[in-house]
């Protein structure tokens, strides 16, 4: 099976010159897989996201998504960031509908089939525990709730690829673990390929099937680790020795990269 997302020998520098943000990167993620990219801050993790979604194009190497070389924004992806980036003048529900106003075929269907899409948005809100919150404005929600809504917005158009850039970085530990479970269930209930960028090793091990460790800038892949913990995973798994061993192993890779950098 050919990978769903593949970066092959990718080097990228912003503005086309200067020191590269990522260098000689090769990763491949299979369809339906949950992949995580971990590394110290400033290692070019976010650059990988921009490359895989076609927001940036590499100076060297190739980016292939869904069998096609990326030459424009890929349109089959949804994104969520550390900052929920909801639009404050729209209600939560209208924020969710935003992607449908952009992406075809929904864009031309939205006006006539609005009820159907609203129902879809409501169902999604309910799935992440935001039932009845659609009429509220984002700034009336707590940080954790906003992040849930942001995840819904990333999924409303049923993308094949979900890109998450440290989506839980700004949340407290309890809310973060709750949202781990939310994203775990969303991934399980849809056939979506997820790429999660994070610096939280426990988060990566809990959620991902495949983890890539990156070195400090310029970002390179220094290790790739498959996680074979059985699914569905319960939060309890994070206290097992098997889990902790994997976290330790990843940590060693990153610590090593930092000392040699």
């Amino acid at each position, binding site marked *: 099976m050919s990978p769903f997302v593949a970066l092959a020998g990718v080097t990228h520098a912003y503005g086309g010159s200067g020191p590269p943000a990522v260098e000689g990167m090769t990763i491949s993620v299979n369809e339906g897989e949950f992949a995580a990219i971990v590394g110290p801050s400033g290692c070019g993790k976010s650059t990988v996201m921009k490359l895989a979604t076609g927001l940036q194009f590499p100076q060297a190497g190739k980016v292939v998504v869904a069998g096609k070389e990326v030459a424009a*924004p890929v*349109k089959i*992806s949804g994104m969520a960031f550390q900052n929920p980036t909801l639009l404050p*003048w729209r209600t939560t529900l209208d924020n969710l509908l935003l992607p449908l*106003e*952009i992406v075809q075929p929904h864009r031309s269907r939205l006006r006539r089939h609005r009820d159907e899409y609203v129902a879809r948005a409501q169902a999604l809100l309910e799935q992440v525990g935001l039932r009845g919150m659609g009429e509220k*404005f984002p700034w009336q929600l707590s940080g954790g709730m906003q992040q849930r809504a942001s995840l819904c917005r990333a999924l409303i158009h049923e993308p094949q690829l979900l890109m998450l850039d440290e989506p839980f970085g700004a949340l407290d530990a309890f809310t973060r673990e709750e949202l781990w479970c939310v994203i775990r269930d969303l991934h399980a209930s849809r056939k979506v390929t997820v790429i999660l960028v994070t610096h939280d090793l426990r988060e990566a091990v809990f959620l991902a099937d495949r983890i890539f460790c990156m070195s400090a800038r310029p970002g390179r892949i220094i290790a790739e680790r498959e996680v074979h913990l059985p699914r569905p995973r319960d939060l309890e798994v994070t206290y097992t020795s098997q889990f902790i061993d994997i976290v330790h192993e990843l940590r060693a890779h990153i610590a090593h990269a930092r000392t040699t950098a």
Partner: protein
Amino acid sequence: MTSAVPGQPSKAVLAAAPWVFTIGFFLVWEIACRALAVSTFVLPPPSAIAKAMWEYRGPLAFHSAHTLWMTLAGFALAVVTGLLLGIALGASKLVHAGTYPLLVAFNAIPKVAVVPILVIWFGVGWAPAVLTAFLISFFPIVVNVATGLATIEPEVEDVMRALGASKMDIIAKVGVPRSLPYFFGSLKVAITLAYVGSVIAEYNASNYGIGNLMARASADFNVPLLFAALVALGVLGVIIYAAMAILERRTTGWAQRSNFAT
């Protein structure tokens, strides 16, 4: 919510404050004029101004209405032009870099210097007033709309672009709504500027309007009428400013959720 915050004025006090201060201002003025026996020819007391306002209520109302009409026409032109130019400047770095110095230079020209040119082009009448109002007031709208667009969060832009949104999509869905608070904020500035512009033009080149009334009162050394016209200008100015403020509150309530200025 409650008035029981120590060291903070209560709501009722705040509501009464503008009236108390305004009335107090005129009282001090009246008393000072009387105590110092200032000639009405130099500075008429408010009572004399009020008398003149009543005496000239007909012409004052007529000319105020004319000035208001000129101001609103020029302001409407400024809103349309300001929005379009602001969007163009905010959306394109090239347009911004190319036109900004010109705009700033143009804005720096005192518009009273432009009135004679307008008179040569269009003659004495409504055109100089409307155009001066327009020319003086579109700049803040341009700058504010452009700023609103230029400060779109890069992450929101990424979310939109990754969905395949075109530049126009991003401007329509994010840029314009986002710049609305800036836009309405600028309207409050722009309407008062437009007002200044129309009065300047009327003063120099019109047969109607408060500006024209003042020019004639000044020629007649009718100082109370001059001041009566100034008061009428002030009142009208507050009214149009308040109208813009209400519009702003209505349309962009989402942007005014801070409790900072309580």
